[in-house]
């Protein structure tokens, strides 16, 4: 296998570690290409913070259940519900992190290509995960009152 088509080269392309082709970018000049990539990185980091927020909410759902029970003067029952919700939240944080990395890699390939496209479907899918989380938390709140 030649280095041009081998798995190593493909991994390089996927991770952006190989040599940059001379015609990379959407033809608007190097400055635009650079800013496109930097904006892509910032978008990834924003998704990452959303994922981290989900993890934090997961922790809060788990641990604040104990405090809520005390404030309401009842034994800390329903802990199983807390736990499942919390684990689901933390897990979705991890899934979201991986998906946003995939989004970053895809978008980067698009930036290096001739035409810039917005990845609406992928972004909406990612937001969908956040929406599902909202529903989970809502159900949890309704159930535990």
């Amino acid at each position, binding site marked *: 296998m030649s280095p041009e088509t081998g798995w190593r080269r493909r991994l390089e392309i996927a991770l952006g*570690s190989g040599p*940059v082709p001379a015609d990379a970018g959407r033809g608007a000049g190097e400055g635009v290409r*650079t800013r496109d*990539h930097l904006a892509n990185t910032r978008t990834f*980091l924003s998704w990452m*913070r959303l994922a981290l927020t989900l993890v*934090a909410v997961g922790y809060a759902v788990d*641990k604040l259940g104990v405090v809520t029970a005390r404030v309401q003067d009842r034994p800390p029952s329903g802990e199983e519900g807390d736990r499942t919700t919390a684990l689901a939240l933390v897990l979705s944080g991890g899934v979201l992190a991986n998906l946003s990395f995939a989004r970053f890699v895809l978008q980067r390939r698009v930036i290096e290509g001739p035409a810039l496209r917005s990845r609406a479907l992928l972004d909406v899918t990612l937001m969908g995960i956040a929406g599902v989380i909202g529903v989970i938390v809502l159900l949890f709140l309704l159930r535990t009152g």
Partner: protein
Amino acid sequence: MTVEPQSPPRPDETRPREHLANERTLLAWARTAITFIALGFGVSRFDVFLRQLRKVDNGGGGGAGAGFSAAIGIVFVLAGLLTATAGVTRYLEARGQIEDGRYEPRAWPLVVLTCVMCAVGLALMAYLVVDVARS
């Protein structure tokens, strides 16, 4: 009309904006790192409070899970430091590339961050599961 092939080294008028974009990216890294660190601090401090509650409930006994929750806090803070280091390293690297007029979209800092995020998530899940077994 012919498009000029990757105009020779630098149309200089966009360079300031590139550096500013690079700086905004560094700030985004900083916010991400700070989020990790703040969460780690919150987790470990809130756990002290919860253990105190448990102690009162058990009439002075209990206090399980102390070591593990401290470890979780440290994992989060270390994740934050790693994130900050990756961000600064990439910032400096990108700065040189902007000056050279050839930006290379490296993914390694994002790979690092994704792995860190997965590790932290798994650690927290393990903590939540183990913690209920103890209490």
